């Protein structure tokens, strides 16, 4: 029996990486658990409210996006629609080529651009792309991949980062976080000053006002979206919110769930390019609305996964994510969110096996600020994937069902158990690799019951 992909990849994860992931996810989880009740009198009501707003958004997406487009244009933001990753990359590439051929592009952290592999596409077109989020910057200089949607280098410890910085000539070796941050800051500052284009994601875009809202802690979003002459914001179409009045709820839920903060250190409200009477800010602001499979997800039974606000709380509490770490999933969206979103976006045939990488413990649903029923969706994905023939593990479930649907076959099977457990079976090796084989303890219930009555 071949091991499932996540298990196979998890075997290659170093104990140090697992330790880093474990301690960081536990710390953020604790911070989240403290932060949300401190702000919301009734956390469940707040998350139910947020879920209802997101469902409204999904049910009215077409009209909300048109409203957003109209109001963005009225604010001077140029709006582009991208159906696929390739078209998004082309739109962005063309804007860059028009504005500053071969120039420097600074990037703020954005999962949407990770999803479409924008960096590759821009680098292939001759641009120098610089990630400016500290974590993403480390990923970039290490030729690594982000392993968490909020904390891209959650799998690395301070020592590894220090070595990378020393190797890149950022300054003398140090493990002091503040000193490391200062070294990166000095290097990135040069890039900000010479960059012609800044690319960011979007946390929320408000339909009624045409404003883009970004949340962050490092200040690199501020510089990426204001220092260069051109700002390109990329957002998944599900990120639109109907009203400005929805923002307080969502900002608190996102900050609280992602990092345990009341709010990010910086919250940006972008309502257009530099105006004639303003002395700074970009000349052009573009908004790229990315579909890339989302409208198709909306039409099916996994629609609720599009409520996601990318807080990472489900990754932080997931026992499988903690043990295997994000890279094991082999997708930009790892952990519980990824195990549903990735196959929903890209097809059960291709990625349906990710739904098996779960104990179905339900911690993700409990943590989710928009109440996405992730375990139920994982089960439904397994049903789909099984019927598509992608998760057959050689366990004879049909034979099990045959035995379990007749009392005498069942009892005969139970009597055979001590013999059967010595026979080779696809589950046995996996079990006994690390555990003692279970054996009958004490009396048989059935015999006891018969003797007593």
């Amino acid at each position, binding site marked *: 029996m071949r091991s499932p992909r996540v298990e196979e990849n*998890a075997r290659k994860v170093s104990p140090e990486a697992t330790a880093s992931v474990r301690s960081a996810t536990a710390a953020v989880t604790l911070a989240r658990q403290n932060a949300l009740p401190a702000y919301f009198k009734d956390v469940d009501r707040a998350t139910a409210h947020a879920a209802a707003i997101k469902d409204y958004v999904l049910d009215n997406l077409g009209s909300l996006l048109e409203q957003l487009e109209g109001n963005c244009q009225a604010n001077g933001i140029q709006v582009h629609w991208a159906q696929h990753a390739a078209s998004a990359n082309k739109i962005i590439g063309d804007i860059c080529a028009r504005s500053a051929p071969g120039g420097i592009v600074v990037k703020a952290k954005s999962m949407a651009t990770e999803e479409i592999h924008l960096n590759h596409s821009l680098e292939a077109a001759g641009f120098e792309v610089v990630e400016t989020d500290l974590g993403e910057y480390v990923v970039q200089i290490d030729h690594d991949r982000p392993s968490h949607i909020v904390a891209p280098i959650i799998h690395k410890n301070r020592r590894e980062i220090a070595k990378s910085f020393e190797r890149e000539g950022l300054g003398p070796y140090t493990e002091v976080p503040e000193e490391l941050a200062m070294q990166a800051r000095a290097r990135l500052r040069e890039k900000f000053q010479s960059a012609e284009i800044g690319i960011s994601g979007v946390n929320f875009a408000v339909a009624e006002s045409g404003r883009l809202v970004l949340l962050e802690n490092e200040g690199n979003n501020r510089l990426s979206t204001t220092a260069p002459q051109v700002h390109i914001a990329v957002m998944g179409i599900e990120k639109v919110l109907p009203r400005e009045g929805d923002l307080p709820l969502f900002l608190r839920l996102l900050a609280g769930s992602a990092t345990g903060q009341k709010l990010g250190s910086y919250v940006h409200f972008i309502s257009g390019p530099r105006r004639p009477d303003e002395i700074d800010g970009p000349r052009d602001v573009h908004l790229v609305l990315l579909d890339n499979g989302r409208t198709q997800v909306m039409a099916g039974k996994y629609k609720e996964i599009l409520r996601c606000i990318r807080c990472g709380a489900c990754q932080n509490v997931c*026992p499988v994510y903690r*043990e295997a770490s994000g890279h094991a999933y082999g997708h930009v969206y790892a952990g519980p969110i990824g195990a549903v979103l990735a196959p929903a976006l890209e097809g059960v045939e291709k990625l349906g096996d990710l739904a098996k990488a779960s104990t179905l413990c339900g911690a993700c649903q409990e943590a989710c600020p928009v109440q996405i029923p992730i*375990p139920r969706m994982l089960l439904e994905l397994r049903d789909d994937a099984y019927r598509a023939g992608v998760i057959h*593990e050689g366990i004879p479930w049909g034979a099990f*069902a045959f035995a379990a649907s007749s009392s005498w076959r069942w009892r005969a099977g139970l009597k055979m158990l001590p013999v059967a457990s010595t026979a080779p079976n696809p589950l046995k090796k996996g079990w006994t690799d*690390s555990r*003692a084989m279970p054996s009958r303890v004490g009396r048989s219930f059935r015999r*006891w019951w018969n003797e007593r009555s």
Partner: protein
Amino acid sequence: MSVAPRELESLAPKKPRVRLMLTCLCDAYFGEIGIATVKVLEHAGCEVLFDERQTCCGQPPFNAGDWDSARTVADRTVELFRTGEPIIVPSGSCTAMLREGYPMLFPKLGRLPAFELSEYLVRELGINSWPRRPLGNPKPMKIAFHRACHGRSIGLGDVQEFLLATVPGVELVRFDQEEQCCGFGGAFSATFTKVSAGIGREKLRNIVASGATVLASGDMGCLMHLGGLIEREGIPLKVMHFAEILAGALSE
């Protein structure tokens, strides 16, 4: 006003009749847990019925994605258990299958009156201390209680710990990362071996650090997995099911 003894008897609450779902694990390996469950229910004043035709709830193929096989098993279980009495299950996981899983397999099926054992004792019968009559000498036990994860989907909360805390001699100890899953996950434990065992070992590390001598839970799935690791690695922890602790308090 005086009441004749006969009338008094008819006024007394009737013994609740309940139906035991043994679960396939207790059927195959852990008969003592089934026996303990019956003793506990009887001490709580119930009349226990057991249909010998029962097999399994069908969760293993359901979780594996083979819903056709799951339906074959579940369909039969529904027929056997749809008799009106509360169904008592010494497992949150199988209870969740009956309450949450079956409606996914059979969208038209009404809700089965299935209860996890502690849930039935505390929330249905209103029992808030154990045993109901003081008995014998309590055995002191330092227990780390693992809340099995399927309790989340059926809203168990801390009901098991609530009752255990009232058992004479029982001391519940807290441990780090309590709310984390043990890594069992059914067939997951054998197909995702490294991940499952890694999660389990981390859980056991935290429990051992708490100074507990007994690891208890309400689900034999978790205990079989953690118990297998404990045995393989020679960890000094005794594994006990919730029902065994309650029944143990009766036999002194």
